[in-house]
């Protein structure tokens, strides 16, 4: 129970369905001792813990706060900083939802004697067990949840998977929960100002990311004050005027160089991904769909045999960002996923001379 409307309604629906429900709030980072100003969009702070407790009291269920700061630091914060410093774009929401909640929190819940861990995610679990997309596809969160193992799925309930956000707020009002009108939590909850660059500078003051901006021929066209400011496909913040539109094509942490190019070179026809988690592995012939960013579109693809599971995209994708996840779907079912190392292959229609066959990283 984060203190938001989704997990509040989750608990309420389960109580109404007759479950014996235990409310748990994760304490993830040291919150300031004072309450946040009215209307501020925090997550997992003191006010949220107190909101969650009020909802639990209203529902008449036991409530416990679990201090998972150490696990959150390792799984989410350290991962974020290390991934940026490694020249890639981290996804803290996958680390927090897929890893922290359904490994660490789940094992703590089972240790309490609970049979299931229920959360307010917009996703569904069916008995196979299979992870499936939410009925409200705009709210679907399966992209964050793919690291859940089959064993985790067996112990999971997603009561909101069949509801829209509007219906969830309606339930919250009907149940008289104080969290009914609470705003959505922000993107990276532990970086209140969303300034991840400043956060990295504060976390690793000894590491400098400043370096050169170079074009594809290796000509220095500018300088930047930290390569972790950039992600593949980014235009903003480059501050170079070459008389044409340029984008970040590649980040080279060893030399601290940011390589830019025109938009054409950012197309890929494949993906090299690592640390695969399979719920069900498709055959190399099957056309599956892949998603390469949260709430991004689905792209038809084939997954190669062999350990590397090389992905061939049947429709080219633009700006594939290392560090993000690729999640594989068959219809509404999540088959598995992995972390992207790089896009591979040129745009089929582009000039082969200008673009290398494999970028590698």
């Amino acid at each position: 129970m984060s203190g938001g409307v989704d997990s509040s309604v989750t608990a309420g629906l389960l109580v109404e369905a007759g479950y014996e429900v235990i409310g748990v709030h994760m304490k993830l980072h040291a919150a300031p001792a004072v309450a946040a100003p009215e209307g501020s969009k925090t997550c997992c702070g003191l006010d949220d813990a107190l909101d969650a407790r009020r909802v639990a009291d209203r529902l008449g269920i036991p409530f416990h706060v679990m201090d998972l700061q150490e696990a959150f630091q390792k799984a989410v914060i350290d991962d974020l900083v290390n991934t940026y410093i490694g020249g890639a774009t981290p996804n803290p929401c996958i680390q927090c939802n897929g890893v922290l909640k359904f490994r660490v929190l789940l094992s703590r819940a089972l240790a309490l004697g609970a049979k299931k861990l229920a959360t307010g995610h917009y996703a569904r679990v069916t008995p196979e067990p299979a992870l499936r997309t939410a009925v409200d596809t705009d709210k679907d969160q399966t992209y964050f949840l793919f690291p859940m193992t089959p064993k985790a799925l067996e112990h999971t309930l997603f009561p909101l998977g069949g509801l829209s956000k509007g219906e969830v707020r309606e339930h919250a009002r009907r149940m008289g929960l104080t969290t009914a009108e609470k705003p959505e939590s922000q993107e990276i909850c532990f970086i209140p100002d969303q300034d991840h660059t400043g956060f990295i500078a504060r976390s690793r003051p000894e590491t400098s990311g400043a370096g050169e901006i170079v074009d594809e021929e290796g000509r220095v066209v500018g300088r930047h004050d930290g390569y972790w400011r950039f992600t593949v496909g980014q235009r903003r913040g480059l501050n170079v005027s070459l008389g044409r539109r340029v984008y970040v094509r590649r980040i080279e942490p060893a030399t601290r160089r940011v390589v830019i190019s025109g938009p054409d070179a950012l197309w890929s026809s494949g993906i090299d991904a690592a640390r695969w988690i399979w719920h069900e592995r498709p055959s190399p012939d099957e056309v599956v769909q892949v998603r390469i960013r949260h709430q991004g579109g689905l792209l038809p693809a084939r997954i190669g045999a062999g350990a590397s599971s090389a992905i061939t995209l049947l429709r080219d994708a633009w700006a594939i960002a290392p560090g993000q996840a690729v999640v594989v779907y068959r219809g509404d079912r999540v088959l598995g996923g992995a972390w992207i190392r790089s896009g591979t292959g040129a745009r089929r229609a582009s000039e082969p001379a200008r673009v290398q066959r494999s970028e590698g990283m």
Partner: protein
Amino acid sequence: MIYLDYNATSPPRPAALDRALPFLTEHFGNPSSTHGMARGPAAAVERARDEVAAWCGGRPADVIFTSGATEANHLALRGLPRPALLVSAVEHPSVLAPARALGACVVPVTPDGVVDMEALAALLRERPGGLVSVMAANNETGAVQPIAAVAAAVRSAGGLLHVDASQLGGRLPAPTDWDALTVSGHKAGGLKGAGALVLRPGLALAPQQLGGSQERGRRAGTVDVPAVVALGCALSLPTPTGLAALRDRLQRAATILGARVTSEHAPRLPNTLHVTFSGLPGEAVVAGLDLEGVCASTGSACASGASEPSHVIEAMGGDPAAGVRLSLGWKTTPEEIEVACAALSSVVTRHREVAEEFSWNV
């Protein structure tokens, strides 16, 4: 529900509640008024004053009623003369926090959580005449401090000794040698909302709360009559017997499960057991016990309700996240202790089984 969290608060003793209740109903008067409705409440407050003084060996005129032990601690630290201030590392936060604000020197403790007497003597030599604040017994570990020895050291350095005796009421007799003593009502079986600071006769105190002549001008504000009456009554009741035997039964059960007993080699409150299970967060054990109907504590909680890493265990060199505190009191029965032993066993065993099955730590 089996209640084993007496160090957080005790259920009121029935006699204390009986004596307090009329002051919530027909005898509602303000004891500072001069009319007939004030007389009953005023007399009751004075009787409570006598009882508190009798419990700790002070004079009734030197008992200052406060809203609780936290206020009494603040009043002592801020109101007593202090050319220097020394506090032990395991004091309650209501001593440590104001002490830090006043620039106090922190006296270390031994691995058993007892004040390091050599360190205290050395620190006092550098700070003659200093005010020393040491608790009579620790709320988390139950370790009883050597107050007589501390008092001797303070005397020889020409200093003053404040003793926070919040955990002693209803458990052990009060220490005899002190300059100021903090007393808690609800921990001793009274009601929440009353405590007292007792002073040695003749000691000067600067009031910290102004605006009324209550408590001889040393603490302004209308006295919480029912809570003060209950405090006096609770301290005058006989101390429950047999707590140490029940605690030892619980301790054996915990040790069989592999627990380490905190402050094992120090004298401890008869009602307190603090243990750690290796690799098992205290809050997980406490949550598990709660679901089994047993109320326990990690000993320290933050505003969100999470367990705060314990500064007490940290000062003793232990794992500040691993502790579980079980504290007994006047209502605890042998049957309850048997149920609690079984609950502790099932909670700890289940945690270990799950930890083995899901090796999922990040």
